[in-house]
């Protein structure tokens, strides 16, 4: 009885909520795509201009990662059996 009375209205309301939420979601996706795309394009453009003015410069992708820095630091650490300080 209750389902017959309210069922269609609840169904319409749920459909409306889903439709509007999707619309908002699409708008936010569009916003994200437009602005992140523009930032990416601008940074690439800036890079190409700087390349022209200063010549090719090392990029951040060529920089060592934290893991590599740690490994290098560990390699360069003096071994415990060496007498570094020159004490007795």
């Amino acid at each position, binding site marked *: 009885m*209750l389902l017959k009375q309210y069922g269609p209205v609840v169904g319409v309301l*749920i459909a409306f909520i889903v439709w*509007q939420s999707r619309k908002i979601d699409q708008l936010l996706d*569009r*916003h994200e795509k*437009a602005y992140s*795309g523009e930032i990416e394009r601008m940074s690439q453009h800036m890079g*190409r201009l700087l390349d*022209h003015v200063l010549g090719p410069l090392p990029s951040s992708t060529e920089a060592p990662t934290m893991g590599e820095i740690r490994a290098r630091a560990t390699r360069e650490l003096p071994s415990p059996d060496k007498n570094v300080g020159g004490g007795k």
Partner: protein
Amino acid sequence: MIALFVALFVLAMSVAIQSVLLRSHRRLLTAQEQAFRFHAIRDELELMAVNKEISPNDQVFEFVRWTTNVCIQGAGKLTLREALRTVKTIESSLPAEMRGSDHGRFVKAIERRPESLQKLVGEMFFAMATMLVANDFWVRFGLHCAKAINTTNSMLHKPLLKFQRIVDSAATLLSPTHSEAVSYAREYSEMGHRLVA
């Protein structure tokens, strides 16, 4: 059940209000998307000048730069009449020796330039066609119909072209502004295709 009903109703109303409030943001985003497109074209053109692919004194360089600047100012924010006025101003700023019916001379002049510049100018015409149709449903509809008819390769192509001519002349009488905008948008879109291909 009534409590659930009330909760759903309140939720639906709040989502609807949010959607209405975001309407202005949608308009702004559409304008920004178009402006970003023209920014990208202008930046690419300037980079070509920096790389000496084109001279900054070249008439095409000056025309494309000026056009993109005008379009960045107005893209997405103009009404149909204003957009048409802008397009006419752009048309009148074409170098004198490149003016002529159906942009034939202009396209020939562009085709003598480097391929990368041809593609860039093609992109600019696509963006201009988008700018014209962006804010008006009927102009957008007219452009899509014309494009669909042009790409039809079936037996229906000729009758559809005749029908299109009838609709065109009727539209010219009923709404000259819309009709003019559709013809400009079609022309720019065709030029864009020709230059990008």
